[in-house]
């Protein structure tokens, strides 16, 4: 089912928890609501669930405006961060609870419960109480309870945050595959950019209740439209350097404290068109910088080196600005060593310091 939010707002007293958000979720898509804590993503989810009523704006499920519909009448399933299983009921009773409330015939209930339990692989646990299950098992049960109603919309609240690191990686893939197999329109909330990147077809990035970006993961990573998006997506995060566009002898260069970066070709033209002498913020991801001992675009001092296994994360200072670079695992240099940085011309981002908008896209 297609979901459409139109200028949706939720105010708590004077606080605008959600501020004029408009999103269209196509039928069968998997959408992440991503943002730092307090950005309004959970409020938005609870409005979709019918727990909160919107202050203004409309929520449409298909053609129907559901603003005033009670949760139980919305045909939704939801998995909570805490799983929210009913502790006094067995796993089986938990799973069939939504069907019991619909007064379906006993054999239908039983059949669907077993089909569901098989799908999420909890067949062996049906007689247990939730308290006897591990976190991963509880999540599977919560998932099957949410899915047994065959909902039009599935809501997931931080679905992975209570799992340990290894299980998180496994469940990430499993939930994504399950969603694709069932084709249920799904919206999930997360504060973890990696979770949003890996699982979602489309990411709605929120900040202070406002929608700042709504696009596909690779788009958000490669072509962030605002400084906030550039900073929030990617780990280790993008580096930012204050620079000035300099035109000299017909050529164009980016220059800053300790930075002198001549440009050529297409990118030079683009940057030139922004205007010489303009102060901008240069953004570049740690994997798009190379460290050498001889010469490059910037001079830097090694602050500390952190081995990641696959790479070395080199923390450097370009004058007073910290810069992180991903170097090959063989990289080695003592603390305080002087090195030179070379930046990949095709991967640089420029942002206006005032509007925080991207300038090169």
């Amino acid at each position, binding site marked *: 089912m297609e979901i459409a939010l139109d200028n949706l707002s939720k105010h708590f007293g004077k606080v605008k928890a959600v501020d004029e958000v408009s999103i269209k979720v196509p039928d069968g898509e998997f959408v992440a609501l991503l943002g730092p804590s307090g950005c309004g993503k959970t409020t938005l989810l609870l409005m979709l669930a*019918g*727990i909160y009523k919107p202050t203004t704006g409309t929520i449409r499920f298909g053609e129907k405006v559901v603003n005033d519909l009670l949760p*139980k009448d919305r045909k939704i399933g939801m998995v*909570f961060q805490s799983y*929210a299983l009913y502790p*006094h009921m067995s796993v089986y009773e938990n799973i069939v609870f939504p069907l019991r*409330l619909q007064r379906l015939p006993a054999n239908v209930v039983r059949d669907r419960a077993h089909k569901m339990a098989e799908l999420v692989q909890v067949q062996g646990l049906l007689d247990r109480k939730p308290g006897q299950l591990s976190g991963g098992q509880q999540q599977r049960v919560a998932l099957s*309870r949410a899915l047994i109603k065959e909902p039009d919309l599935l809501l997931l609240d931080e679905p992975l945050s209570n799992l340990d690191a290894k299980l998180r990686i496994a469940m990430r893939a499993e939930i994504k595959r399950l969603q694709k197999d069932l084709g249920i329109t799904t919206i999930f909330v997360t504060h973890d950019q990696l979770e949003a990147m890996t699982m979602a077809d489309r990411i709605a990035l929120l900040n202070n209740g406002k929608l700042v970006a709504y696009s596909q993961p690779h788009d958000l990573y490669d072509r962030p439209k605002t400084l906030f998006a550039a900073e929030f997506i990617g780990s280790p995060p993008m580096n930012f350097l204050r620079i000035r566009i300099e035109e000299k002898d017909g050529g164009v260069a980016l220059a800053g404290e300790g930075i002198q970066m001549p440009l050529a070709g297409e990118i030079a033209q683009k940057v030139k068109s922004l205007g010489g002498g303009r102060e901008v913020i240069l953004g570049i991801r740690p994997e798009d910088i190379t460290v050498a001992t001889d010469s490059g675009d910037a001079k830097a001092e090694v602050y500390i080196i952190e081995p990641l296994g696959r790479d070395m994360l080199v923390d450097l200072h370009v004058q007073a600005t910290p810069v992180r670079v991903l170097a090959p695992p063989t990289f080695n240099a003592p603390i305080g060593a002087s090195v030179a940085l070379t930046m990949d011309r095709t991967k640089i981002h420029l942002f206006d310091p005032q509007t925080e908008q991207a300038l090169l896209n």
Partner: protein
Amino acid sequence: MPNRLRSAIPYVLLILLTTPILVGYLWLFISSMSARTYGLRPEGLTLENWRFLVEPIRSRPSIWQVLLSTLAFAIPLGLLDVTISSMAGYALSRLRFPGRRMFLSFTIVLHAFPSATLLIAIFFVLRAIKLYDSILGVVLVSVSLGLPLGIWLMKGFYDNVSWDIEMAALIDGCSRLRTWWSVVLPIIRPGLAALLIFSFLGGWGAYIIPYTFLVTATIQPISVFLQSLTGDYTFVNYGVVTAVGLFQLLPVLLFYLFTQRYLLNLYSGGMKGGA
């Protein structure tokens, strides 16, 4: 060895401090079985003091009549207390309404309020609504006085039930009332059981309220009956008094023995960390 001696000191102190209490209980038991006592030495072992079980003491109502009155007081008290507390506690824990904060403060103030001060005012109220000297009146008064604590304790239990579970029930298809009844109440069942036992035992041992507002001997509960045995005559038969005292005490002790773990819930359930 001096180390061992040192660690024995607290035990010795504790034993010394506990002795008077233990001696008191022992005397209670011995006295109920003997005609007279010299200190702890009984003289004339007898079951005479326990005759009240089969035959009323002088002009008083029979012990079984008294027992019936006590139950007629304590059972409704417990049930009403739990019913009202569980509803009010839910409202205070979950709903936002004007005056909620004030109501909470008031509740706790009322709990700690010296009830003796209220007796005169309550007397006039009971007389006005024609419930003076009736078990119903005493039950209503006791429930009112017990509610503040009951509501606070229930609120504590509800506070520990996560919002998520309620939301899940709403989404699964429950109404608000159904959510409370089928999902939330079963979760706090240990709290309900604890409060029920607590209130019931409170009613069983209650003295001031029934003493003040019940005059007819046949509807007085056991604690008033017991007190009346010591108060009315110039010569008090301590043997009988101690026997009746034990009679009152024994079911309470048994009750505690079997329901102790529920009572523990009362405080630990509402509190983080617990026992």
